[in-house]
């Protein structure tokens, strides 16, 4: 599965206009950063790390996927994003048919901006829709209006993007089954070919976790989340977008190649503050805060904050940990047959897949993927 020829690039843009109540990502508002980091020239810093990366890696490896995430990448504007992509093309080169995605906030794009991104070489747009229910968006402290995401996705289609994704969050306190069904149907109506749906995770230190601790909002219930997951899965399957990863559904051929690279333990280089990289069995991660990150890159010093060399055991563990989440599953040969049989008996692994020499999860198994992974890896280093 490990393909040495593919290389993916992740680019992190650590800016947001405001911080959403549930978010613990590495992102900063203008007031949080002050004047030490300039948003309007940050694309130059990113481009500089791209050059640095290419020099480190040698120029013989072309990039097959690029994913710009955040934060809110569109705060760099189409000019800034295209600038970074141009640098990637120049320093590494893109393979034929490469997938180039940027995330975007639904209310920060315009048809014109989308057209410029498409012209600059972006092939895929991913919008954080989260929900179509106003009360849910309000609890999540999202600033966009319910219709903005669907509108943005349609504009992206119109601008020539073949691949458009919407992100949903389910299990938000106050969300009803009908709210969720409404969100899924609204997303499908936008003509997308990919949907990601994540159950809300209450991360420590977020405004949401404080509100729950104060008793203002109930903690999302796991059983309700499981029900919601099944609602989503039923509708996506029926609409012709089957699951290909635990939290991702796509029209066949519309799977996010960048995403798959992660789950298949392929090589990627992370550009930007806090970004993680995985190349040839090494992992490292950049300094998290944009200010010291920028200082290092401008001084042409490696911006990494730490690294690890993966052992054979680590690699095997990761192969199971990541691969099991994919519809394609993992090879039966890498795990203990008896444990797989137990999981089949428990209804978590599809017996048909085992006959074909693979370990693929049933829907119940997808919902218990972490438990399956623990079972498969029990009594190992």
């Amino acid at each position, binding site marked *: 599965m490990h393909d040495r020829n593919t290389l993916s690039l992740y680019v992190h843009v650590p800016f947001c206009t405001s911080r959403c109540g549930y978010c613990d990502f590495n992102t900063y508002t203008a007031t949080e950063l002050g004047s030490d980091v300039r948003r309007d020239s940050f694309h130059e810093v990113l481009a500089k790390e791209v050059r640095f990366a290419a020099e480190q890696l040698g120029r013989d490896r072309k990039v097959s996927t690029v994913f710009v995430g955040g934060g809110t990448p569109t705060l760099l504007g189409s000019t800034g994003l295209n600038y970074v992509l141009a640098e990637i093309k120049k320093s590494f080169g893109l393979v034929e048919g490469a997938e180039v995605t940027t995330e975007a906030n639904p209310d920060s794009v315009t048809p014109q901006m989308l057209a410029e991104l498409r012209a600059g070489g972006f092939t895929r747009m991913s919008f954080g829709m989260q929900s179509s229910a106003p009360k849910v968006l309000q609890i999540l402290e999202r600033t966009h209006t319910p219709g903005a995401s669907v509108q943005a996705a349609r504009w992206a289609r119109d601008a020539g993007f073949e691949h458009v994704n919407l992100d949903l969050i389910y299990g938000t306190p106050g969300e009803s089954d009908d709210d969720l069904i409404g969100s899924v149907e609204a997303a499908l109506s936008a003509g997308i070919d990919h949907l990601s749906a994540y*159950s809300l995770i209450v991360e420590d230190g977020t405004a949401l976790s404080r509100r729950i601790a104060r008793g203002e909002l109930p903690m999302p219930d796991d059983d309700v989340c499981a029900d919601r997951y099944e609602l989503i899965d039923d509708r996506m399957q029926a609409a012709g977008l089957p699951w290909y990863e635990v939290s991702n559904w796509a029209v066949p051929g519309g799977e996010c190649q960048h995403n798959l690279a992660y789950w298949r333990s392929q090589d990627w280089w992370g550009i930007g503050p806090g970004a993680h*990289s995985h190349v040839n069995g090494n992992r490292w*991660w950049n300094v998290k805060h944009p200010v010291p990150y920028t200082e290092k890159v401008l001084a042409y010093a490696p911006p990494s904050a730490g690294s690890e060399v993966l052992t054979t055991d680590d690699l095997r563990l990761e192969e199971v940990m990541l691969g099991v989440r994919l519809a394609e599953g993992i090879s039966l040969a890498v795990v203990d047959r008896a444990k797989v049989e137990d999981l089949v008996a428990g209804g978590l692994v599809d017996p048909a897949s085992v006959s074909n020499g693979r370990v693929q999860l049933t829907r119940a198994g997808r919902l218990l*993927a*972490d438990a399956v992974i623990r079972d498969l890896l029990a009594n190992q280093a």
Partner: protein
Amino acid sequence: MPGPQPGSTDPSVIRNFCIIAHIDHGKSTLADRMLQVTGVVDDRSMRAQYLDRMDIERERGITIKSQAVRLPYLADDGEHYVLNMIDTPGHVDFTYEVSRSLAACEGAVLLVDAAQGIEAQTLANLYLALENDLTIVPVLNKIDLPAAQPEKYAAELSRIIGCDPADILLTSAKTGLGVRAVLERVVATIPAPTGNADGPARAMIFDSVYDTYRGVVTYVRVVDGRIGSREKIAMMSTGAVHELIEVGVISPEPVLSKGLGVGEVGYLITGVKDVRQSRVGDTITTALRGANESLGGYRDPKPMVYSGLYPIDGSDYPELRDALDKLKLNDAALIYEPETSLALGFGFRCGFLGLLHMEIVRERLEREADLDLISTAPSVIYRLIRDDGTEYVVTNPSEFPDQKIAHIYEPIVKATVILPSEFVGTVMELCQQRRGVMLGMDYLSEDRVELRYTLPMAEIVFDFFDALKSKTKGYASLDYELSGEQDADLVKVDILLQGEAVDAFSSIVHRDKAMAYGTMMTGKLKDLIPRQQFEVPIQAAIGSRVITRETIRAIRKDVLAKCYGGDISRKRKLLEKQKEGKKRMKMVGRVEVPQEAFIAALSTSDSPKK
């Protein structure tokens, strides 16, 4: 030391007395003042609770082991007296030790808090003292407190002991007020000891303490004859002979003596290393020309309550064994044997005199050996009769038969509760719930009542005292003594996880209460055991009959969202942490139960606070 010397004291100037008091009524403070008034401790060396040796005693304000202090006292009549103050344990668990201390005295100072009145245990000990024909010196203490009601409680005391309220002394041990008057009364009213000075030596052991450096220190009261420091002594219950290494008195530091004569109180050191070789209540005589008849009253300490003690960390088992072996040297009543539990691993089945004893042992083990322990619910001793008439004894629910048995006898106690009259209804209800049978009720004063009940001991060891305290805002006091046994309809309730019994949770209860126990335990476990990948039934059963059932529903969702920014390392570390957590799980069949669940399920019922 001025006045009469140890070993050659005329019995006519000796006064042997003890102080009977409830916890917190000021006994240790009064003892402190007596040390100062008689001058054996100067003000500079004085410290609070001078005589209490163990940290636990100081912290909890209770006396576990008694002591005897020789106080030379120049009385108002110009005579030099010797006062031997024998400290008594103040708790129902140690009634036998109290009775031996009382047997060493001719009189007792009855010390009662002037703001609270007499408490049940004090009353019980007072009756013990009266049975032993002791002269009582009644004292109301803490009269400096704003809440003190000396008139009211003097009336109460005078009614109980049948004296004139005017004869009751008033003190404040804290300020020292009235302390000398107590000593004068001791000299004037408590009889001097009498005994046959020329007869064979007989001395009663009223305490026996292990000292790391000296071995066992035995406290005795000489009744007849004389014990010389160069003699060999014999224990009359066993005939064992020991060489005397040292004889002396405590005043309040050890003072060597050439011997102890009639009426004197002091200590002996023989070099034995285990208090079991020098037991409270035994009679000591001389090895040569010794007495033929013991003083009587000796009894082996018998455990009344059993519980399993387990180290929370299984690898601490050897440390627990060593700590018990060490504690045993100082505690003749403690018994234990190894026990294995499916749920808790390796531990010990321990027998205790009562709940306080149990708690003290556990606390000492945790404190002195730095162990974290978990104890199973306490059990009493059941006598079971088979159909063929043979009998056996059960102290552990796991030994209790599943099938029907001809008779089961459980120990019962006579309990005395003293409480404000406003709580009588509530407490009667509580006793009713605990299968109590009322024996009588008396008004001690217009708003204080003494209730007497027969109760199954098993109902008391559970959480009776806690319930009593909470239902009476802490005003009720409790005393009880074993008063035989009764035939009872008892059953063992097992708790099953997915059909497998978990030994640590089995309990012997009355048939009428089986359902309540089952519901409580299954409900508790339902909340404590994490959901598994499959449904887990939790059942309570009597034999093969299931009486109540809860279900832990199968977990449906256990999956994390995406890897943020490709942070696979974080995900792998989380997984490794989860795998570590899995190792700490105990497997009951296929069910993973965290150690903490066992601890939490047992904890609410295993630590009665006294």
